[in-house]
């Protein structure tokens, strides 16, 4: 159907760009000040929906990281570790409130920098990021109830590396628990998405957060590698690909310094024959096309009970034809831009392998903008467990459909992956949902829903999807150590 002849077509409803002012270049945020990088290098940050250069971002080098780590250490020893929890909490409450006041600005900036639809940044990313600060603010003076005994201690300086798919939200997941537990932070945002982190730095200044408690060192992979190699950091946290996560783990393993890893996934979304089909279709769409599929916990493998396959696919295709792909700043847009050229190439390469290996691709016939990085929502049927598109994380709007006959077979196929971040179950039968939820080897199970997040809900993986949790009481534990005297049995030490 042509757009013009469709009476239900939405008129454009663009959000105003005037809500934000972007500077032509940005410095690093170290010791409570914006300072030019010692590396003297800067790189462009572009809007992936238009390829327009938004700003020049500082490329942090080793010297810059040295300064940042020193500043974080000083802040930890002189200020932050001496501040009672209830006072630390007040800073976090202030930050949450200031972010609420500037929520629309953050949303617009995130959409321009990342390419995701304004509806998602406005309704999901920014409100959730704020909730994380508000939630963790309240923990700061209650840490003796967190589960590490009556006198838990912070590690000291925490080094954190975050991805580009939810830039501000991932910052919040990392920074809020770290500060609430009394650590100070050196944070490296993703190369392609630094702008909301730099606006967050301004919020920290406005909140009067003591200098050095949080330091933001923008840069690329080399900056991240230097951060991981830095001897002055007591604890690390990384969200990103399994490949990089493993490299980080290898680099740190022998040191014994703790690291939290939140890595990739290949989430199975299982639809049983007794599921509420329309709800399931909606959930599958949400599971794979939310945020252009740039979601580590995306439901990228749809497992359909064989007898409902054809009917379900038909409904799914009809629903996907209604997805509005295009200008992320338009409030009606469902699917925005792919975050970078590199990511688009990766998606293209993997989908090509799907066709070569014998799976059948389907895409809606939607128009794509002429500039920027775009990929149509895609479904592959005829997929087997051996296909690359069933095994490898695509991190794009691409769904691989497999079938099963028995519940046992569904679980076996769902668990047949080194990943274990998230999985979905669709059924109207309570006992089956609980059985499947128990059998699935994944850290998050969404039953009759998908891609839901909350500051109070622990999130994190099984197996090669990483370890440690973020959110909830469990998310505090990696940022604390036990300092109470444990029950010790005799028989300590060496015996001759």
């Amino acid at each position, binding site marked *: 159907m042509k757009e013009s002849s469709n009476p239900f077509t939405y008129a454009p409803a663009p959000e105003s760009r005037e809500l934000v002012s972007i500077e032509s270049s940005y410095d690093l945020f170290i010791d409570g000040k914006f300072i030019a990088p010692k590396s003297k290098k800067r790189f462009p940050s572009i809007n992936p929906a238009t390829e327009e250069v938004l700003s020049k971002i500082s490329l942090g080098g080793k010297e810059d990281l040295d300064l940042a780590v020193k500043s974080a250490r000083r802040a930890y020893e002189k200020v932050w570790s001496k501040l009672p929890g209830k006072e630390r909490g007040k800073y976090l409450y202030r930050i949450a409130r200031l972010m609420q006041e500037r929520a629309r600005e953050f949303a617009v900036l995130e959409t321009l920098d990342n390419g995701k639809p304004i509806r998602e940044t406005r309704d999901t990313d920014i409100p959730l990021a704020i*909730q994380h600060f508000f939630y963790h603010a309240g923990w700061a003076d209650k840490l003796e109830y967190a*589960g*590490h005994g009556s006198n838990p201690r912070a590690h000291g300086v925490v080094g954190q590396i975050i991805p580009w798919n939810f830039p501000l939200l991932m910052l919040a997941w990392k920074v809020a628990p770290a500060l609430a537990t009394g650590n100070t932070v050196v944070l490296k945002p993703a190369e392609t998405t630094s702008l909301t982190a730099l606006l967050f730095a301004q919020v920290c200044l406005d909140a009067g957060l003591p200098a050095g408690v949080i330091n933001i060192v923008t840069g690329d992979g080399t900056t991240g590698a230097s951060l991981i190699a830095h001897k002055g950091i007591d604890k690390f946290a990384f969200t990103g690909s399994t490949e990089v*996560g*493993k490299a980080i*783990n*290898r680099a740190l*393993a*022998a*040191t*014994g310094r703790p690291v939290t*890893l939140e890595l990739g996934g290949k989430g199975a979304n299982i639809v049983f024959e007794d599921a509420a089909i329309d709800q399931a279709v909606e959930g599958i769409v949400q599971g794979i096309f939310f945020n252009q599929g740039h979601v580590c916990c995306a439901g990228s493998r749809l497992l359909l009970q064989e007898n409902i396959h054809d009917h379900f696919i038909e409904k799914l295709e009809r629903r996907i034809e209604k997805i509005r792909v295009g200008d992320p700043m338009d409030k009606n847009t469902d699917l925005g831009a792919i975050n970078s050229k590199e990511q688009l190439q990766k998606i293209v390469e993997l989908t090509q392998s799907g066709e070569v290996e014998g799976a059948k691709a389907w895409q809606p016939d939607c128009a794509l903008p002429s500039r920027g990085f775009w990929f149509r929502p895609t479904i592959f049927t005829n997929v087997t467990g051996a296909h690359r598109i069933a095994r490898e994380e695509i991190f794009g709007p691409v769904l691989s459909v497999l079938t099963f006959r028995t519940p046992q077979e569904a679980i076996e196929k769902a668990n047949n992956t*080194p990943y274990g971040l998230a999985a979905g179950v669709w059924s109207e039968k309570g006992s089956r*949902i609980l059985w499947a*939820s128990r059998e699935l080897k*994944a*850290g*998050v*199970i*969404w*039953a*009759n*829903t998908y891609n*839901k997040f*909350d*500051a*109070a*809900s*622990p*999130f*994190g*993986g*099984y*197996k*090669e999807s*990483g*370890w440690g*949790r973020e959110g*909830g*009481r*469990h998310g505090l534990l990696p940022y604390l150590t*036990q300092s109470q005297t*444990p*029950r*010790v*049995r*005799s*028989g*300590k*030490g*060496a*015996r*001759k």
Partner: protein
Amino acid sequence: MSQERIDVKKTYKLFINGAFPRSESGRSYPIFRKASKVLLAQPAQASRKDLRDAVRAAREARSKWQSATSYNRSQILYRIAEMMEGRRSQFVEEIMAQTSATKSVAEKEVSESIDLWVWYAGWCDKIGQISGANNPINGPFYNFTSPEPVGVVGVFAEPDFPLLGLVRAMAPALVGGNTVVVLASEKRPLSAITLSEVIATSDVPAGVINILTGLRSELTPWLASHMEVDGLDISGEKSRSAEIRTLATENLKRIADFNTSISPNRILALMDQKTIWHPIGL
């Protein structure tokens, strides 16, 4: 006519999948009485193949142990304590033979080992209550978190305390629902073998606990890097910690590394937290 009776000596063997095989390699190695040159026993020197067999057995035993109710697991671990009590004198004698411990010191080690099983057995049906949560979500969802076992855990028994250092290392992994492959103390392995005889008569399903004797230098790299081992308790192997941690990175094994303290956190170090969401509505 009277003649002194010749006593029947025990052959010390491996414990894999509920059976007591010798090493497939046919090897054994000598253990001497205390620091002397008097031969005490020649336990099996497990090979890489024995280790693989043990991991496979542990892998296959996972579903049985994980699907057992926590009440059932608790009773089985308690049963180990009951069975040990009946073999007290054998454990005491073996500790005295392998170490410099006096009788009273050895007796204390045995008592503490038995009591430790009782302490850990009681955690089976409680750990989920102190560690799980019902999470208050900003929306109409029921959301709860509970700990689950990581799977197969490689356990390094402590070198010095042949019995207590073994129980301390293996019990927490089992409480969480993991199955284990245990490397016994290299120089003091006899208590581990006797314990495996206790385990074999304590209703522990075959393959849930596998115990290998042999040389750490041979076995450690393979246990640390085995792709079907999901976690390691390295508390008993402090000297090779860095090497083991590095070898364990490929499949992101969970690492538990504690001092000799006992704590429910030691159980939780070898568990992953699962969070389940369901909408609430009419």
